[in-house]
């Protein structure tokens, strides 16, 4: 019983570290998992082909899923300690997987199999939880607003300048919706995303959670935020939630039904793929700001790479991670699809296509709004974020009131944080 409990707790002792007799030319098969769409899958396929030019004996079996399903699958695998060797990883789950020793301690592999020269001290620190490096950032991104300029022009409405107040943004969305005549809307209700709530809090100098993992917002603040959503939806400026559900898993923006969307700045290639067009009509601009001069935005790892602690081939996995993170070849393949590369050697390989240039320009343009990054997300943050999204959806459908939604969110959050 005690040994079973230890096994469940993942207390398997210190990691063994790299094998002294590892031969990169010995036949090895690795599993690689990532989230994304067909566009990204094509990039990975090309990158793996280039990796195999260097390491022909390392076979890489890659699989991909949309983001929510990707994590559901990982959670099931984590339960059985059967995670894929190499994973694209999300910041929201880093603490949970690291604390439970599901990820390989990368320290013995850094410098030897994974080059670190291209990273700064701070970017290397992103993947450190409780003093252990369990992941390395692929790229960085920031919260942003995408606008579909081609669609805006088509409706005849004027362009959104970016960085206005939320009220001005709502007015602009209303103008687009009016010009769109019921088939195009200005945007999606921004109160459905926890990141918009987060930047509102950060405008007041707070984060969602403090260093100890305690929430830094009250029920009244959340009720006020969701109440604003009701006002915007009431004007007809945003796409009806029912319509959004019809086009899911595409977003309203990806389906060409809305002219703006607040999201992470590396989502452009996905949108271009969804829209079935080149990205030339997409523009990146600063999100609305709650208080002028606020340091509400921040750079976070767009995604990371981690190796499973259960991997039978940690050295080969480390070589693959090194290639995907540092090589110029991979940089040339991915561009900024996975965020603005964190490794300078990777970035050197990136041929800045117009969309990548827009991301670079955008992150430069918001320098004055960038504040310190919040603490590494609490364990269960992924579930909290999803609950927020679902309640936002229900508010849009009118199946819950703001008060009910706030109560449900706090009850759920309390349970998750106690877990």
């Amino acid at each position: 019983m005690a040994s079973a409990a230890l096994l469940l707790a993942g207390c398997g002792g210190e990691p063994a570290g790299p094998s002294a007799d590892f031969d990169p030319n010995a036949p090895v098969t690795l599993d690689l998992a990532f989230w994304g769409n067909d566009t990204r899958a094509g990039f990975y396929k090309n990158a793996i082909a280039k990796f195999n030019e260097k390491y022909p004996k390392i076979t890489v079996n890659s699989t991909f899923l949309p983001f929510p399903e990707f994590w559901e699958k990982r959670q099931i695998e984590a339960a059985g300690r059967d995670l894929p060797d190499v994973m694209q990883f999300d910041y929201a789950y880093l603490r949970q997987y690291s604390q439970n020793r599901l990820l390989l301690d990368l320290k013995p592999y850094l410098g030897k199999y994974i080059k670190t020269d291209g990273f700064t001290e701070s970017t290397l620190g992103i993947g450190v939880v409780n003093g252990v490096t369990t992941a390395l950032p692929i790229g960085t991104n920031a919260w942003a607003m995408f606008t579909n300029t081609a669609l805006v022009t088509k409706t005849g409405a004027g362009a959104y300048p970016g960085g206005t107040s939320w009220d001005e943004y709502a007015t602009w969305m209303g103008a687009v919706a009016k010009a769109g005549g019921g088939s195009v809307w200005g945007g999606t209700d921004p109160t459905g995303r926890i990141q918009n709530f987060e930047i509102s809090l950060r405008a007041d100098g707070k984060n969602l959670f403090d260093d100890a993992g305690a929430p830094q917002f009250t029920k009244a603040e959340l009720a006020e935020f969701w109440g604003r959503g009701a006002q915007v939806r009431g004007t007809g400026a945003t796409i009806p939630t029912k319509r959004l559900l019809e086009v899911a898993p595409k977003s309203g923006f990806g389906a060409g039904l809305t002219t703006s969307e607040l999201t992470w700045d590396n989502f452009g290639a996905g949108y271009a793929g969804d829209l079935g067009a080149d990205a030339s009509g997409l523009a990146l601009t600063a999100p609305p700001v709650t208080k002028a001069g606020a340091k509400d935005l921040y750079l976070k790892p767009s995604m990371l790479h981690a190796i499973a602690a259960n991997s039978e081939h940690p050295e080969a996995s480390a070589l693959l991670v090194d290639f995907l993170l540092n090589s110029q070849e991979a940089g040339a393949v991915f561009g900024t699809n996975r965020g603005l590369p964190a490794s300078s050697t990777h970035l050197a390989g990136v041929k800045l296509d117009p969309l990548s240039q827009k991301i670079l320009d955008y992150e430069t343009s918001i320098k004055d709004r960038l504040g310190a990054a919040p603490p590494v997300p609490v364990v269960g943050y992924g579930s909290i974020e999803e609950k927020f999204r679902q309640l936002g959806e229900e508010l849009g459908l009118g199946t819950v009131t703001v008060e009910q939604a706030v109560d449900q969110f706090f009850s759920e959050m309390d349970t998750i944080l106690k877990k």
Partner: protein
Amino acid sequence: MAVSLYLAFTRYDIFNPPEWVGFGNFVRMFTDDPVFLRSAQVTLEYVLLGTPVKLAAALAVALLLNSITRGSGFFRSAFYTPSLIGASVSVAIVWRAMFAGDGPVDSSLQVLGVELGGWVGDVDLAIPMMIILVVWQFGAPMVIFLAGLKQVPTELYEAAQVDGAGPVHRFWKVTVPMLSPVIFFNLLLETIHAFQVFGSAFIISNGSGAPGGRLNFITLYMYKRGFADMQMGYAAAIAWVVLVVVAIIAAIMFRTARSWVYYAGDNR
């Protein structure tokens, strides 16, 4: 099952050892989790509406097939096929596309002057859409009904006809009583089956149970609690509540069956 029962009384996130919470999960379920109550409600709605409609459709088609002699084999296979493929992922995807805002169902209804909009994102139409999907898969109970109908002695119909009974009277006074054991069997089986709805709801709602939790059937909710939120103890507790509810419903059915199910040779 013993492990699952134990876990139902614990807080267990898979990564850490289970922590005993007594009846905490059950108390939370009924006092502090409106989503659970709503899931239970939509599941019961689906079971109570979907099962009788499915059985009625199965019986109607079985009666039709029982009355024809030419091509019955072909029609039997044709009607049975959906129950083989109905639970597949591909059918759920097709269903979603068919009932979407610009899908063929909506377009056809518009031609008839009915403006419903899409069903997929409509809180009022989501369950009817799922019921249509399950009713479409009536093949399995239909085959069982058909087998039961073949067992009804023709002399009974002849005697009823001689007594002046019309088709409706013969149906209620001969077919239904003689078929009652088969009806009971199908009812029990399909009720339990309806409680297990998962795959199609998962696909159609993109795993979220949308719109507004109307497709968040209890199995889907349990899955999300367990594997998305890693609340395995809570999910186990839900599983046991579902098991008990299904067992109670089955027990009620067995108890009431004594008054309406007729078995040949029964002296009552």
